[in-house]
Every structure is written in C-alpha cells, then in structure tokens.
C-alpha cells in the first residue's frame, strides 16, 4: 500500500499542530522551519518565529536552509543580533523552543554533541549551537525526534541541552529558571509529554497505524502510559498541499 505521506511530512504536520497562534517560537534548522511555515499558513498566522542569529517575526514566505540565512528575516519585524535574541529569551519572551538531537532520555535531556566516549568519540556531532540556550530559556521546549531504541535511551552519552536533568527540582537546583522545561516530544511514532509530578516522559498519542506496543518497543527507558492513549489524525489534504506546493516545492526537506 502506498502511503499518502512520508514520515517527514507526518512529523512536520504534527509539529505544526503543536504551535500556538500569537505565541513566539524559537525555530531551529530542518523540520521546525517547515512546521512553523505550515502553522503560519493554516493554524497560527500570527506565530512569531525567532531565529537565533537575529530574525524575529519573518513572514516565512521562503523556506530557510539555515538559522542565519536571509530567509529567516525576510519581511521580518526585527533584524537584530544573537545577544539581543538570547537576552530576549532569557527575559521570558519566548514561549516555545523547538529542538532536535541524536539522543533523548526520559527527562527530556538531549544529546547533539558526541556519540560514545567524549574523549574518544565514535561520532562527533555538531555541538550545542543555540540548543542549550533554547533549552535553558524557553518556557516550553518541543523535541522533534526519530523514534528508535538507540535514540530513546536511559542514559545519554552527553547532556548537550537541559531537559528536566535528573528529575523534579533539578533544573531549579542547577540554577535554571523555574517554570521552564520540556513540554512535548514529536516523533515518527507518537506524541509524548511529561508527567507533572515525576517529570518523566509519558505517551500522549500514537500516530496513525502505530500501536502502543510499538512505541514502547522503540523506547529503551520505561515510558509512562496514561489510561487512555489518543490517536493523532493523519496529515490532511490541506496540510499536504500547503507543504508540497507552497512551503517546500523544491522538496529540500520532504
């Protein structure tokens, strides 16, 4: 059976639906850029995109390939610099932050620095970039991940970006601002959130055609399961049309 959509398109649509109108969101490279562009067209026309090198409130008419590109501030409201953007986030202006990584643990900590031992890494990844700052300053962070057992693991090789660190109270004890932290994880299998008390990752909804067992099997730490698991709606025709025809007609990402 041929699917109506591919995994990347599903990730983009699910991420777009998480975005809230009239809020601000730190946008990283890749899926978040497409999700923000889609959300602006369909769900959140007044979403304010924030890019770390200085672009705030772009129309996102053209799809950027990098967070420092002209397209991140095309017809924007603000073109400033990295200090001003990060200081704005530090003062509590940025609600959502979209993050990626090679590994995530049950407290939403992320690794994008090395695979293996730090001194002798198997793979050297890019490093924090703005990830650590987004994870420190935004009120709610949303991780977009490929859901695989070697990525959803009990102990990260390296904590690049803070989630809830070692559990309840750990962010505040470390000195991070109270009331901030991980909010959602959007994957090719499911949408996940965090238990209010234990700060541990819990399943919210499975993607179309995916079972709870499959999600559990793809997660190498114990995943909290609620009494009722929702099912995400598949991408709509309208979402797919906007994505393919308007947002990424050159198929750079999808």
């Amino acid at each position: 059976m041929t699917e109506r959509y591919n995994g990347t398109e599903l990730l983009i649509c699910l991420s777009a639906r998480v975005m809230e109108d009239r809020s601000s969101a730190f946008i990283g490279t890749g899926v978040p850029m497409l999700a923000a562009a889609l959300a602006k067209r369909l769900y959140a026309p007044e979403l304010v995109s924030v890019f770390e090198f200085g672009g705030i409130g772009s129309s996102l008419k053209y799809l950027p390939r990098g967070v420092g590109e002209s397209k991140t501030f095309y017809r924007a409201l603000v073109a400033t610099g990295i200090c001003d953007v990060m200081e704005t986030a530090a003062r509590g202006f940025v609600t959502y932050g979209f993050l990626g990584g090679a590994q995530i643990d049950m407290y939403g900590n992320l690794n994008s620095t090395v695979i293996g031992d730090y001194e002798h890494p198997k793979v050297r990844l890019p490093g924090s970039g703005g990830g650590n700052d987004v994870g420190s300053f935004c009120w709610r962070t949303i991780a977009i991940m490929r859901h695989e057992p070697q990525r959803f693991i009990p102990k990260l090789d390296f904590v690049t970006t803070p989630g809830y660190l070692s559990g309840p109270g750990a962010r505040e004890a470390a000195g991070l601002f109270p009331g901030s932290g991980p909010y959602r994880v959007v994957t090719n299998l499911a949408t996940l959130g965090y238990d209010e008390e234990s700060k541990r990752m819990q399943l919210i909804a499975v993607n179309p055609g995916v079972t709870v067992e499959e999600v559990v099997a793809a997660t190498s730490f114990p995943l909290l399961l609620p009494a009722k698991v929702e099912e995400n709606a598949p991408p709509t025709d309208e979402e797919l049309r906007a994505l393919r025809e308007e947002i990424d007609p050159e198929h750079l990402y999808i």
Partner: protein
Amino acid sequence: MPNYRRVLGLLSFHRYAFPAVRRALTPAPGSVTMPKRSVLNPAAAGSLGGSMEVLESGRGRLLQTPDLDGLRRWNREHKSMALVDKLVDEHEAVRRCIDDGDYIGFELYGTCRAPLSIVREIVRQGRRHLRLVGQGLQDVDWLVAAGMVDAMDITYNAYEVHGLSSVLRRAVEKQGLEVVEWSNAGIAWRFKAAAMGVPFLPIKSMLGTDTFVRSAGKVTEDPFGNGRVMLLPALVVDCAVIHVHRADRFGNCQLDGISGFALEIARASRKVLISAEEIVDTETIRQYPERNVIPYFLVDAVVHAPFGSHPGEMPYLYGRDEPSTLAWLESAKTLEGTEAFLDQTMRRLPNHAAYLELIGGAAKQAELRALAVGR
C-alpha cells in the same frame, strides 16, 4: 548599612508570625534556595552577599586568557583615534592581522555574510598553531582541513540541512583536535564580557549539562539570591574577521540585515580585519552615523571583497551558491578530495579576483544576484 543578620532574623520571626510570609519564604521542593552561608566572606558582611565560592569548574581548557589589562594596553598602544587609511589588498590584510599562534574568530555564520575570501587567503598564505572560536561551516572547516588549527572553542560545526562536517569528524575522532564546548549565547556573551571590559559574566544558561562540564566556565551561587549562575570568562580575540556590506577606507562599517555577533566580536578583539562588498566615501558614513556599527578606531585593515561571502550569501545582494557548497561537502569526504579542493580553489590561485573568475565571472555573479531574497 543594614545588618543582614538582623534582616534575616526579622524575616525568620515573620515567617512564623504570618502564614502568608511563611508561604512566600518557604521554597517549593527543589526550587531555588537562599545561598548557603557556610563560607562567609567578612568583607561582604553587612551586604546580602556571602563569598562567591566556586561550586563547579568546567573541565575544558581556557584556550585564551581573559587578559583585560592586556587588551586595554594593546588598544592604547596599537589603536588610533586618527582617521588612518587602512584600505589594503587581502594579502596585506592577512599578513598584517594574523600571526602564527593567534586566536581568531569569524562572523557571521558559515553561509551568511561570511568572510570567506579572507579565509581563503589565510589558507593561501598558511599559518600555524591557530586557535579558533565559534560556529562554523566552511570558514572553520577549511582552516582545520588545512592543518592550521590546534584547538577550538566550539558551539556548532556542521551544515544544518546538509548534515555533519566530515572535516570536524576526522579532526576530533581521529586527529585529536582539542575542542572546548560552549553554547551559542555563551560564546556571544563571552565576547560581550570582553567588550564591556569585565572579566566574566554570570549567565543562566549551560547550567546542569555536560556542555558546561566540557567548557572552561565556572558555577557559583549568586550573592544577590538568584540561585546558581554560570560564570563565562571574557573572550579576548587576537583577530576578528568580519564581512560587511560597506565600509570606508578608515574602517567605518555598515551592515544590512541581522547583525549576528559582529558588534560584540569587533569590540572583543585586539585586531579587526574587515572585508566589504563595497568601499564607500566617508560622507556616506557621516550621513547616517547611527548606522556605523563598527567604528574605524576598532579596525586594523579594510579589504574590498565583492562576493566575499561566496559560496555563502550576502543579505539583499546575492544568494547562496548551493551547488558550490555541495561540491565542497562531497570533496571533504576524503582527505584527497579535501586537499584537491583547497589546492584548486585557494592555494593555486593568486587572489580573490582570480577566485571570482574561477567560479564563473560576471555571468555567475549575475546568477547569484538574482537569488537574493530581497526586501
């Protein structure tokens, strides 16, 4: 001056007397608590503060000493408030500004307003034992690939949508390149600290993570009661290389679009090498003095470098040459390919003008101008 013991005593009394005060003063589980006073600094008695005891130290090496006194003396001895003509070709600019062993940094970020014509000139001339700072794409990759870099303060080195840097992977995984980790804000604020003339800045990022553990920062308790803070050491750069839209021959600069961290790194550096798409008359600067973001007295050399950001873009002027970047990424997969690329596009060419001919001359430039996003 209020006695802090008395103030604390009063608060202690009120917390039992009034439930509302008690609630306000009782920290939620795991929330920020007042600084521990096990180590009292007598000098701070009478103020809120205890001593700023270092609670944790990052294990990374401090690659550059935050020598603010040295920066002040350097500026006094080497900088001039006089309007001195600094317009030179790229060969002279690099000869003048970048020495073996220097700690250098590039602005903006890889493919946007990137000073790549100057980076190519550095590869052409060759330097040894450089140390680098920052985010990087080609700028960092080429110098690392050319074997000129001993150590790096890194925040991010990869190609975003196009994936990881083969050069960084080889250098760190196989060749033992020393890297020290920071976040993007962390690095930008390290420049800011140096620009302010302060030895460190306390921040609320990098805390609780291995990014901190592998940095050269420190963690302390805020003596004013905001919990733990990370202390970023000021970063004094030996030479900053910045590409701008226009500059006059004295070094006054204007940028269009986002400013990245140009303002901060220019003020944190002993030497500043500017390349500019356009050299303008000083009258242009005087008409809009508020747009002069890097004033002449910071600057040591000015180079006219049209399409200096190629294969990166220049906001409002020209777009990215994506096939050219992809060609580099393909070459970078092997050592042989990397060497051939450096030879062909840098070492065998006399200058930037020859590079512009190599990539297709006027026709190519028109093509790239058409890719500019516009306003």
